């Protein structure tokens, strides 16, 4: 296990009556790419601002390399940030922007210029070093902002939705650049975003936040395939959540009886369902089989087709079950064109028990 760089120890942040972050405990490791994700107002940006010293925690401790940081002013930290608005200084050119942090640290003019140019070159915008900030494109500005933050060679870089202003093509390119940069530098990136694709594409670990709480921390695959609670299951991916009463539990397999029928669900570690309790499980939209004839056995729901959403090679179908709830299925476009489905036509979804994921009462 890598060394802890940052520790959040029961951190609380209140603004008046509003609690933005509540008893947050987690550790960020050295050299890790961690993404903090959640809907707007979940406390992710507040968390990042506390790391930068722009907000002081109302309770608990934030430690960096063992040192309590709660009241260290921002300029005495080495936690540069890439801002959502980029916040480049409009009255300085690209190179002068990059030099700013070095100048504040008392680096002499010659070294400053040399380092700034090195970084602009490294980010492939060396030729624009003397250009006015306002004359650069969105992607070029982004790179200047990155160079400005990295030029002081920090141990940690904070990124606050840095790609949200860029168009889709550029986002993909900047993602691969950020990933590469983080690997090469070996420093910690803390990346706040509301975009699932950005978080999953780049991060080693993802923190999902909801209303000031951490809903789940884990590697992207676990977050995606093994959501721990209803919030994560709904927020991430295309998941169907089915609720019912626990009928029987064999230790490895639990049977849940709901309004749509009886379903067998494989049990993960840490769950001990009690018979008679209300419990839910998740079945991902891309893990189900879609057929027009009723399968003989297994977990089956009969549905009718309501609408479809076409995104390239994958299609999402929106189905309606007998109790009126929605069920989502994702299949390959070519599979769908072989099936000849009709609007409101009858279809069956089915899945193996080990594809479903038990989330308990959550």
């Amino acid at each position, binding site marked *: 296990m890598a060394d802890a760089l940052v520790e959040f120890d029961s951190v609380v942040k209140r603004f008046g009556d509003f609690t933005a972050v509540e008893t947050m405990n987690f550790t960020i490791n050295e050299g890790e790419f961690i993404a903090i994700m959640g809907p707007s107002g979940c406390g992710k940006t507040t968390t990042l601002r506390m790391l930068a010293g*722009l907000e002081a925690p109302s309770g608990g401790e934030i430690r960096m390399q063992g040192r309590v940081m709660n009241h260290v002013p921002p300029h005495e930290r080495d936690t540069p940030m890439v*801002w959502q608005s980029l*916040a480049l200084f*409009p009255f300085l050119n690209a190179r002068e922007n990059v030099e*700013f942090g070095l100048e504040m640290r008392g680096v002499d003019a010659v070294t400053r210029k040399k380092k700034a140019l090195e970084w602009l070159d490294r980010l492939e915008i060396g030729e624009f070093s003397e250009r006015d900030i*306002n004359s650069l494109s969105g992607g070029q500005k982004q790179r200047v902002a990155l160079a400005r933050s990295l030029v002081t060679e920090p141990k940690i870089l904070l990124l606050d939705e840095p790609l949200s202003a860029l168009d889709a093509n550029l986002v993909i390119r900047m993602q691969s650049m950020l990933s590469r940069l983080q690997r090469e530098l070996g420093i910690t990136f803390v990346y706040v975003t509301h975009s699932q694709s950005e978080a999953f594409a780049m991060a080693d670990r993802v923190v999902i936040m909801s209303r000031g709480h951490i809903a789940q921390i884990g590697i992207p695959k676990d977050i995606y395939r093994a959501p721990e609670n209803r919030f994560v299951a709904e927020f991430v991916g295309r998941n169907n959540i089915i609720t019912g009463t626990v009928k029987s539990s064999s230790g490895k397999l639990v049977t849940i009886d709901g309004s749509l029928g009886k379903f067998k669900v494989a049990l993960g570690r840490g769950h001990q369902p009690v018979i008679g309790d209300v419990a839910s499980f998740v079945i991902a939209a891309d893990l189900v089989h879609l057929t027009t004839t009723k399968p003989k056995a297994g977990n089956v729901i009969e549905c009718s087709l309501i609408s479809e959403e076409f995104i390239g090679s994958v299609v999402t179908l929106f189905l309606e079950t007998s109790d009126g709830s929605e069920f989502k299925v994702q299949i390959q476009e070519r599979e769908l064109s072989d099936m000849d489905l009709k609007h409101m036509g009858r279809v069956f979804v089915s899945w193996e028990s080990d594809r479903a994921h038990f989330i308990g009462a959550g």
Partner: protein
Amino acid sequence: MNRDRMLKWFLYGYLALVLIFIFAPIIFSIIFSFNSDRFPTIPLGSFTLKWYETIWQDPDVWEAARNSLIVSLSVAAIATFLGFATAYTDYRYRFKLKPVYLALILLPPTIPLIILALAMLAWFAKIGLAGKVISIIIAHSVLTAPFAMAIIRLRLSQMDVSLEAAAWNLGADQWRALRRVIVPFCRPAIISSFCLTAAVSFDEFAIAWFISGLNKTIPVIILEIVTGNIDPQVNAIGSFVFLTSITLVVIAQVVLMTREKKEKVHHG
């Protein structure tokens, strides 16, 4: 279509009339300042620089010009500094009595000049500052600081809220962030506020007349010349004052507008 055109011409005509009423007296004043006749009548006499020579040789006018220059430059510096400080306080901090604070700051220009002047005179007499150049400077600073504040506040409102935090984030303490980020960002507004407050102070008559005592400024001496007799010298001084003020105002506008244009063009 036709009505649109009529409206357009009507508005043009209206604008022309406004400009004529504002500028005609000034233009006549400038023309007569080069006219050899003692009385401003048409037809004009011959071209002369006599009146300019007279004021050039008048030590009282020189004295007044010197006072006006000292006063307007000092006022511009003080008012711009105060304006910047109050605008920044308003931008940066939230506190309970902020509306009261802002109302107090913006109050002076709403008080009738004569009342402000009388109050200033009474107050300065009490504290032994009456009739000094410094008293005009203080009074004019009070009068013009709100203009400076308004201009700089507008500029600050256009600033990305993350800009100052970005400076802290890169290792600047509050003072350095102020000096290296806020002030440069506000530079166009600071320059134009300096020019405008200088122009307002340079032209201001009522307060200066009440409290200047023997230290007359240009507007005060103009009144003195006019009340004595009809003297085309006034036209010469007037032309000079007009030129100074309009230059300052134009500089202020140009500085503000070029910056805004530049920022707008590249934002797209």
